[in-house]
């Protein structure tokens, strides 16, 4: 029996007085969509608190797309912060959607965003609060179909036990197909298994229970998934790509929160995909091909979006906004239009060359905070290995231009533990940071010298599925800590501030990136030991993860630090962003040889395989510089 779809806000309301930030739970935001007469209901869930989840562009897009289907209502839910979750459990209040304040368990479909590996325990937290059985194979006819999708779905295996289905790739069209097909089957009286088989026939949908594990032939300890005998499902599920990205509405946001968010602004996606080919980067593969929107479309969406939402900031989002072939023209047109309104434009990251500084200048006002660049590695040798096609001269020019234009604070992103890295390469990070600071002291006036600072943020390399480094091990845990110390000791200037990412979190992230279905017990064990909101540093506790692993005989350090054979079948080989394994292997070998590979939006095809495999192509609206 399905739980009734009904408004239960009155049960939640008495709790609001006693939790932090009650506005997380009250709904009634401007632009929220209510469809009271719908005959099919889905609820999209972001696996973190409201203010982290609301700005998520993927869910905003799906919210619009699903609500555009006649008869389908799409609502939202977020994971209550621990104070509220505990209060709800104590009061017996289940997890409710925002719009209808209805129990999650009353929906036909519950769709989780899968933003990154560290959200793993929060799916369990949400399902448990919702009263939905944690394991897909324990769910009955009355339970919702639980589906996952998003950027981190390209190794779905660690989560396979908890999800009925995954959507691999872009959801604009697929979400409508999934809702319609599920409704059709439901109305025809189909069983849960028949529904799942039906969904598995849709392009891009992966139903893990219709696959079994095999350990035959060369493979990793996790084995690999193959279709169950008798199931008519594809051996490889290719990602969905929206038919005509340029034809979709660039304005995808309608809900304007009351709560103050991490990114409290209008976001307009100006382009999708990045072909720069950094070899550690998963998004650089999984978001291909590259597709740009036209300047007209972008300017119009910004205008409509600002007047519909009332935001005072608009962010032009993408993996690399300054790569848009019309970036300069778009920024000029927007600046003209927004003159005297107090509304500002922002771009999420700066390209590491003088063009990047030019563009930063276009969006900066009188107030110049910090400028952020991502050289990713300290030495040219390492930058060649990772295919970050940036030279020290590029960085010099960019930094020099930024100082001359008035910026005093520079922020640099690096990665540590990259394949082939030596202690010298770590020292090179410190040297580069010192160099950038000293360069500033040379070019700025004496009066400004004291205000200059460089801060560097150094994350730990995590080998991600579907990248040329997917076979690599993570740097040994103790070595990470040693190199972090080496880095701190190698910085000469006090005005260079070093922030190193937590080695423990990175270890678990690597484990969850590389494991297969056997990770389910690990995730559940960690959650049962109290882990939730692992993406929040103060909530993360490695001991609980280690203990959960030990109970299952899993050595997390060993899992993170063991490289895979180049010819082994990998746990994620049956879901594909369209790239060919031959390309990945070639890129891996080129990396070891220090050979770089160009960007196919600026030169010719580099043979990654995405276009021919998925029947797509890059769409540029101008010449890239």
């Amino acid at each position, binding site marked *: 029996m399905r739980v009734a779809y009904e408004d239960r806000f009155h049960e939640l309301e008495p709790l609001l007085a006693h939790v932090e930030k009650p506005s997380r739970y009250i709904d009634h935001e*401007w632009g929220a969509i209510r469809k009271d007469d719908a005959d099919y209901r889905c609820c999209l869930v972001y696996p973190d608190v409201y203010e982290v989840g609301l700005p998520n562009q993927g869910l905003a897009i799906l919210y619009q797309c699903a609500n555009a289907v006649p008869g389908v209502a799409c609502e939202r839910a977020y994971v209550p912060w621990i104070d509220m979750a505990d209060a709800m459990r104590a009061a017996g209040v289940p997890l409710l959607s925002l719009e209808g304040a209805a129990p999650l368990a009353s929906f036909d479909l519950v769709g989780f965003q899968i933003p990154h590996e560290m959200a793993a325990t929060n799916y369990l937290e949400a399902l448990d609060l919702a009263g939905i059985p944690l394991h897909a194979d324990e769910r009955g006819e009355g339970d919702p179909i639980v589906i996952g999708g998003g950027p981190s779905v390209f190794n779905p295996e660690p989560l396979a036990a908890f999800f009925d289905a995954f959507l691999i790739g872009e959801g604009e069209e697929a979400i409508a197909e999934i809702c319609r097909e599920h409704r059709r089957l439901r109305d025809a009286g189909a069983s849960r298994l028949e529904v799942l088989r039906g969904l598995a026939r849709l392009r891009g949908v992966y139903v893990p229970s219709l696959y079994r594990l095999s350990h035959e032939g060369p493979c990793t300890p996790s084995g690999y998934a193959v279709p169950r005998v008798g199931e008519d499902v594809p051996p490889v599920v290719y990602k969905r790509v929206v038919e005509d990205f340029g034809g979709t509405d660039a304005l995808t946001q309608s809900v304007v929160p009351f709560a103050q968010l991490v990114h409290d602004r209008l976001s307009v996606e100006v382009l999708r995909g990045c072909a720069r080919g950094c070899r550690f980067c998963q998004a650089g593969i999984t978001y291909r091909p590259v597709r740009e929107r036209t300047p007209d479309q972008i300017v119009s969406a910004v205008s409509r979006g600002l007047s519909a939402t009332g935001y005072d900031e608009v962010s032009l989002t993408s993996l690399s906004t300054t790569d848009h072939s019309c970036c300069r023209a778009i920024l*000029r047109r927007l600046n003209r239009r927004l003159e005297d309104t107090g509304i500002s434009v922002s771009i999420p990251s700066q390209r590491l060359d003088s063009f990047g500084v030019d563009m930063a*200048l276009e969006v900066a006002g009188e107030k110049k905070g910090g400028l952020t660049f991502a050289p990713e590695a300290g030495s040219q040798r390492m930058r060649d290995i990772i295919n970050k096609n940036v030279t020290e001269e590029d960085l010099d020019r960019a930094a020099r231009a930024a100082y001359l234009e008035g910026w005093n604070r520079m922020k640099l992103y690096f990665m540590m533990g990259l394949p082939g890295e030596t202690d010298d390469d770590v020292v090179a990070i410190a040297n580069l940071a010192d160099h950038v600071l000293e360069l500033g002291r040379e070019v700025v006036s004496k009066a400004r010298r004291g205000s200059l600072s460089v801060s560097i943020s150094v994350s730990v390399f995590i080998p991600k599925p579907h990248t040329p480094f997917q076979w690599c091990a993570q740097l040994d845990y103790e070595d990470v800590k040693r190199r972090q110390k080496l880095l701190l000791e190698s910085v000469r200037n006090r005005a260079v501030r070093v922030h190193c990412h937590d080695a423990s979190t990175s270890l678990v992230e690597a484990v969850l990136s590389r494991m297969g279905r056997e990770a389910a017990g690990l995730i559940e064990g960690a959650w049962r030991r109290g882990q939730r909101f692992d993406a929040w540093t103060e909530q993360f506790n490695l001991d609980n993860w280690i203990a959960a692993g030990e109970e299952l005989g899993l050595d997390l350090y060993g899992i993170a630090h063991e490289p895979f054979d180049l010819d082994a079948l990998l746990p994620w080989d049956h879901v594909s962003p369209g790239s060919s394994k031959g390309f990945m292997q070639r890129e891996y070998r080129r990396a070891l040889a220090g050979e770089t590979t160009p960007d196919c939006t600026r030169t010719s095809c580099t043979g990654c395989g995405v276009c021919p495999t998925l029947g797509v192509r890059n769409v540029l609206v101008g010449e890239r510089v």
Partner: protein
Amino acid sequence: MTRKAKGSGNSNTAEKTAKQLRSAPRPAIEQTLFRLRVRYVKQGRLAYLGHLEVIHSIERAIRRAGLPYAVSQGFSPHMRVGYTSALPVGTSSTCEWFDVFLTALVPGPEALERLVRASAPDLRPVQAGYVGVRDPALTALITRVGYRIDLSCGMSLEELKASMAAVSELAEIPYERSGKQKVLDLAKTLGSWELEPAGEGAFHLVLHTRADNEGSLRPEILLARLDRELRGSTDAIASTGIQDLESIPVYRVERIYQRGMGEHGATVDPL
């Protein structure tokens, strides 16, 4: 978690470098401004919004309404708008006010209608009109504030009245806020009060209070003190927004008027 600084990328900063591609700066002219004063409600679920959340929501509504709001000059340009004093989380109101400076005159009824269409119903503007650009700010103008508290309590009307009378005789109520010892100056801020029955175990308590730059009365603190009085307790009071009170298990606070003092000692509405 970091946020990009607000207000960057604005136009009145165009005079920068040769590389700057924006239009040339315009000569500074004294702009003619209009000051629109708006009364709005805060009710229902939105009573749980904090003051900053309300402010942000109103500024967004003003932009959605397409009103020609004025923007401050300087490093971090922002909308020129002023508010009445903060309403605590959980407190509703029939009489919140803001002043927004406009660069063009939009007839009052039209401005109100546009604001209503751009606002959440529970933060609905209900009255709008123009006041002098150089009139005192709302926070300086308003010195008389009324609250109505709906409360449920197991005591009789007489018991409650007696306790309230005892509390109202106090000169001050000490309490703690964010680890600091504070004092609510009751003698100065509490004018008068009325208590009426409102059904079985339910009462209306109306507080007529005085406010100025030095202080105002937070109804929660008074209620917490009343709770101590009712059960003969000397427990310390902490200001934590909505209070957990033993003898007053349920209460709701609503601001019912905000007025200033007129020339002849009579109170006047801000509009």
